[in-house]
Structures are given as C-alpha cells and as structure tokens.
C-alpha cells in the first residue's frame, strides 16, 4: 500500500534513483535497464569519443572495478552523416563520392561494391579489363586496410615501429592508386558501367613490383611481432568472441573467420572473376585478438596472390560498358555534335533512370560483408538506399567482448575488430 502511494506521487523518480545509485527503499527492479551501468557507486570512465585509442569517434562508458571493466556501454553516432538518406537524394553517379567515406581505409572496395550493385540492378555488363582492374583495386584496398588494422592494433599495444613498417607499403599502394585516379584516400574511382580512367601503361608491372615488396615487408612484420612473448600475452585469449557469439552478432569477414566461421563472399558468392582465382580463406579457431590479427596477416598474403594473378591475366581493351544509359559520352562527341552535348548535359545534370526493382549486392569488403540494398522506382535517385556495413555489427559485439577484461584489453579488442567510424555511423 505504501509503495503504491509513493509511486503514485512520484511516478518517474524510481528510474532516476536507480540511475544515480542512491540507496532507496523503492522497488526499482521492474524498471531496471539491463544496460544501465550507473546502478551502483563504481567509477564510470568515459573512454572516448576523443580518446587516442578510439580510432574515430566512439564512446565506451566503462564501469571499472580497479582496472577491470565490469560492465560497459558502447555508444556510436558521432560520425553520422546520413549517408543512406543522401543516397535517396543524389543521383546514382553522385553517390559514388559518398561511398568513399564509408570505410575510408579501403574506399576502393566501397566504390567497387557500389558500382556492382547498381550495375546488377540495371543489368549492365562491364568489359573484362574493367573487371580485372576493379579486382586489383579491391584486393589492393584490402591489403591497405589490413595493414592499417594490424598496425594500429600494435600501436595500441605499444609496438609503434611495427605500424610504420606497414605504413610505408601502404603509402606506396596509395601512390599506385594515385596513378589510377589522382586521389590517394577518397578515390571515387569506379563509375557505373566502367571506370573513371583506364590504368596507365605499365601499371600492372608497378603493382607486381609492389606485391613482391609487400610480401617481404609482411614477412618482416611477422618476424618482428608475431612470436613476441609480450605480444602473445597481450593478445592470446583476450577479448574472445567465439563462433556462436559471432553468429549471434552477425559477424562477418576476418573477425568471424578468426572464430572459425568459414565464410568468405569472394569464395561463396563469387562475383567478378573470383571463381577463376586461386586463393585460400584463412580460418582460426579461438576468436581472440591474436586470431583476428593473424587471420588478417594471412589474408594479406592471399590478397597479394590474387593481385599477382590478376596482373598476369589483365589484357588491354575497353573499360566502358557499351550500354548507352550509363556510358559517359565521348569528349569528341560532346565537343563536336549537338546530340553529344545534350546527352552529356542531361547525363550529368539529371542522371540516368534506373529501372524499377530492388537488389541487394554484397561483397567481401576488408572488414566483412559490405552490402548495398537499393530500391529503385524508376527514378534518377534511389527510393531507398540501405548500406549493410560490417563495422556496425562488429561494434555491437565490443561490449560483451570486453566484459571482465582490463582497460588495456578494451583497447586491444577495439583495434582488432577494426571498427571504422565512417562505416559504422554511415
């Protein structure tokens, strides 16, 4: 009776009391939020959004007992730029530049995936050479992404030199990408139905030289860190996320493979010419930080194999689809004919119509399954543009992953799942 009366007088108070941890005679158990970390008087430490180990802006509120994280609550949204809504307000070509900013460590993969999904929706076929270049681009971006991931993970655990070993190769890869499209980070290289420019003459040779060099560098990195006792102590059986948890949390990519989930969209749903490629999918069992690190190291080697196979098979030829709907008109036609000029003007000012329909196209991005779900109503803009970014799912797993670990483990875990803020928040 008493309880009822008090609750009637102050209907919203019990929840606040639970929040601030005041001793109370209210029965708050019914309203208790399982994610509420303010329930008792432990120290809450805000890790992020401006913390050096938070690569990008995330926030993790951790309830500490000594140095052990008893409970944590991970928050995101600091880099939200309404990418999906922008997809509904920009033409299909205009949206390419936005895909760069998803996972900015491997923007080429995003470009390629986006182009693939729109082409699939329209039924456009791209010529062989364009596909080969796209494959090289995708694998190049994967290597770059993994280099930065394992490097930054090592930096977080104090091994700075290791990171810079890989960083040099990354810069060289960026120079190769710069030869393709003039940009290093935000590439916007693919076009729907083709590519921005053809690869310069002799580019494959440069790429092959880079592959050779990178193999040596990766071996060197391997020797420097993988068997280091301190590194093993810091990473083995730390932040374990097992197979079952990975499936529950929809983990994909290297993070899932580290726990033994044998999926790789390049092998399981081959697009482009991946079915003609000879490569292995590395799998680990435990799903700890070390496995995630090592799977990435092995994947880089496989990607380098794929790149060199592509470089051998690439032949000169056209890079643009013959489909008039998506093909950017030739400059000669634009400058010399009336129809060409009008075509060019209409193409860039209003865009092209995509036939009604919907398609989900997924590709194995560096972090996992990157998918574009596009619903078209026959307009120049998408009716709905949904981006399935792997980091979004991986970030949800961070909180259970670090439960009961140390602060230092949080840093190791976050680095190892390679959450990219741009991709997470979109």
């Amino acid at each position, binding site marked *: 009776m008493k309880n009822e009366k008090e609750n009637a007088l102050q209907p919203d108070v019990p929840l606040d009391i639970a929040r601030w941890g005041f001793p109370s005679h209210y029965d708050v158990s019914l309203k208790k939020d399982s994610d509420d970390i303010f329930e008792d008087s432990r120290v809450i430490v805000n890790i992020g959004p401006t913390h050096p180990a938070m690569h990008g802006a995330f926030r993790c509120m951790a309830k500490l007992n000594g140095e052990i994280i008893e409970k944590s609550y991970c928050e995101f949204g600091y880099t939200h730029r309404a990418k999906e809504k922008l997809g509904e307000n920009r033409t299909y070509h205009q949206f390419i530049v936005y895909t760069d900013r998803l996972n900015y460590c491997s923007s080429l993969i995003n470009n390629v995936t986006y182009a693939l999904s729109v082409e699939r929706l329209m039924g456009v076929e791209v010529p062989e050479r364009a596909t080969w270049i796209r494959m090289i681009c995708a694998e190049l971006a994967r290597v770059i992404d993994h280099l930065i991931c394992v490097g930054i993970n090592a930096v977080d655990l104090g091994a700075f030199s290791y990171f810079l*070993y890989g960083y040099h190769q990354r810069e060289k890869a960026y120079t190769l990408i710069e030869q393709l499209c003039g940009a290093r980070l935000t590439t916007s290289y693919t076009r729907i139905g083709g590519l921005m420019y053809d690869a310069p003459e002799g580019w494959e040779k440069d790429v092959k030289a880079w592959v050779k060099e990178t193999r040596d560098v990766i071996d060197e990195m391997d020797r420097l860190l993988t068997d280091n006792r301190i590194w093993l102590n*810091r990473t083995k059986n730390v932040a374990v996320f097992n197979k079952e948890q990975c499936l529950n949390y929809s983990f994909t990519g290297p993070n899932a493979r580290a726990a033994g989930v044998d999926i790789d969209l390049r092998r399981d749903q081959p697009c482009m010419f991946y079915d003609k490629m000879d490569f292995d999918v590395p799998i680990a069992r435990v799903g700890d930080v070390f496995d995630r690190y090592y799977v990435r190291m092995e994947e880089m080697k496989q990607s380098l194999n794929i790149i060199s196979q592509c470089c051998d098979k690439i032949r000169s030829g056209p890079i643009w689809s013959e489909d008039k709907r998506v093909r950017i008109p030739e400059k000669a036609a634009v400058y010399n004919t009336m129809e060409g000029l009008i075509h060019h003007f209409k193409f860039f000012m209003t865009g092209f119509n995509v036939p009604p329909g919907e398609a989900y196209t997924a590709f194995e991005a560096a972090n996992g399954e990157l998918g574009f779900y596009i619903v078209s109503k026959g307009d120049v803009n998408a009716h709905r543009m949904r981006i399935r970014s792997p980091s979004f799912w991986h970030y949800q797993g961070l909180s259970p992953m670090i439960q009961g670990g140390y602060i230092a483990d949080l840093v190791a875990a976050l680095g190892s799942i390679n959450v990219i803020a741009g991709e997470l928040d979109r």
Partner: protein
Amino acid sequence: MSFEMSFMMIKIAVVLAGLLAVVPIMLFVERRGSALLQNRLGPNRMGPFGMFQAACDVLKFIFKEDSPPGHVNKFYYSLAPWLAVIPAFMTFAVIPFAGSMSWNGSEAIFQVANLDVGILYCFSVASLGVYGIIMAGWASNNKYSLLGSLRSSAQMISYELTLGLSIVGIIMVFQSVKLGDITAAQGETLVSIAGLDIPKWGIFIQPVGFIIFLISVFAETNRLPFDLPEGESELIAGYHLEYGSMRFALFMMAEFINMAVASGLITSLFFGGWQLLPGFGWLAGQFAGTEHAQLILVFFQGVSFVIKVAFWMWFFVWVRWTLPRFRFDQLMKLGWKVLFPIALINVFVTGLLIYKGVL
C-alpha cells in the same frame, strides 16, 4: 676556499651540467633513433641532422603559457613535477664517473659523494620520485591520471623490491655498498683465457642478477615495455595528462634523467663503471711517465664511463621502439612471480658460492 671545497663544487657543476645536457641529447637520440628503427627520417630541418630540434622544443616548452586546469589541486599540482625531477638529479651523486688521482698531496675522487650507504642512497632517493607521480595523478583530479598514478605506485613498489634484491649478489661479492669500491674492485681480472683477460665485471659474476636488474630498471624508469603509468593508448597520457608547458617538460626531464641514472647504475654495477674499455688502456699507456699522465688516465676513464652509459641509454631507446607494452596484471605477475623468486634464488646461490670459496 679550500681545495676540497672548490673541487667538490666543480664536480657538482659537471654532474649537473652533464645531466641537464642529457635531456636535449636524449630528445635528439630518441627522435632520430626511433626514425632510424622505423625507416623514416625524423626531424632533420633544424641545424645539422636536426640537432637543434631539441633546443627548439625546449624553447617552445619554456614560452608556452602555463595554465593549470580549473579542477586541479593547485598546490600539489605545482609541487608534483619538482618532486619527480629533483630526486632524479640527486641520485647521480653517488655514481663515480672516473677513478681517483692524487693532487697536491690529497686524494681526489671523481664522484660527488662517496657515501657509506652508497647504493642504498640511490634506491632510497629514486623511490622518492614515485611521490611526484602519485601526487600528479591525484592532484590532477582526473580519472585517467589517477589510474596512471595507481599503476605507477604499484609498479614502482613491486619492482623496487626485485631491483634491491638483484644487486644483493653484487654487494655480497664485493663486500661493500659503496659504488666507488664496487667499481674499483671490478678492475681485477676474473679469469685469463689464452692471454685474454676477462675483467671481474658484475655481468660476468652475476649474469642472472644483471638480467633482473635490467628488467627492473626499465620498470623503474617507466619506459616501454613498462610504460603503464603513461599508457599512451589506454590512459591517454596517464599521470601527466593535465600538465602542459614546462611542467610537462619537467616530467619528461625526470624520465630522461632517470634513464641516465639507470644507465649509470648498470654501468657501475655490472660493466666496470669507469674501468677502461679495451684499447683505452693501451692508449693511456702511451702517455705514461709524462707530466699529465694521471690526468690523461682519468680522462680516458671518464670517456669509458660516458661510452658505456651512452650505450645503455641507446639500449633504452632501442627497446622502447621494438617491444609492445605489458598489461598491468602481467606486469605484476612478472614482478612478483617470476623476477622476485629468481632474485631470491640468485642471492641464495651467490651466498653458497661465496661460502664454497668459488667467488
């Protein structure tokens, strides 16, 4: 002023100036050395090889506005950097940097103070340095700083124990805690193999003690792989998170000077201190019988000492840019469960060997 007095003043000036010079030199070595290890150039714009970069940094620190944040405890906040840096300077007083020479009939020793407690003074003063760190963390009124200072207090106390135990063997062998005596005794020949004299340096008679000492001294100076109090990536900057300008620079100075002291101790205890390096004996012998023979010998001893110390300073930089960082519980485990028992066994075995007359 008597001879002793003025000589003492000169020695103090030399040691202080040397330690102060260590800071910019180490800034230079750390930056360019790390660049060397990482396939990059490092700062190379100011002066030859970027040597004046350190001077520019120091100037920058001096001229930066020193504004303490509003939420700190002002008194302890300002006191902490001094408590960190002053003990670091004081420790070097007992480290001999050259042998002795007779001058005007009196014995001159190249050591600021040849205290009877010697090495114990070193440890007692060095352990004062941790107060600066704890105070900084507490006064900063910041959770990260506090975590950093908690870590550092636990780390320092655990590792001081192993540090102390690791040199017990040396003290037993040389029968003295005076660093001057220990260094002088290391000039003797341990064994002679095929005409090659192996000196009685600490490392040859106490190899296990040396390894434990080396590891503990890394922990004492808060350098990677034991830089947990700073823990750059997890605790942002740890105990000096809220410090800026010259106050921050004082913490950095303390770190570098602690490194110098640690290198000096490693050299004095395990590498013969000012005992001549191979080749230097021959060089000094060329001047035997000349007017300044004694002075030249002392000079070469000083150079030997500086070279050895410089090597160990470089070793600190080398390790820092190679290894990853420990986790806090692993650090404690290493200190208490691995190093501490080994140090105890080392003392026991040394005692047994001395009893048997081997050492």
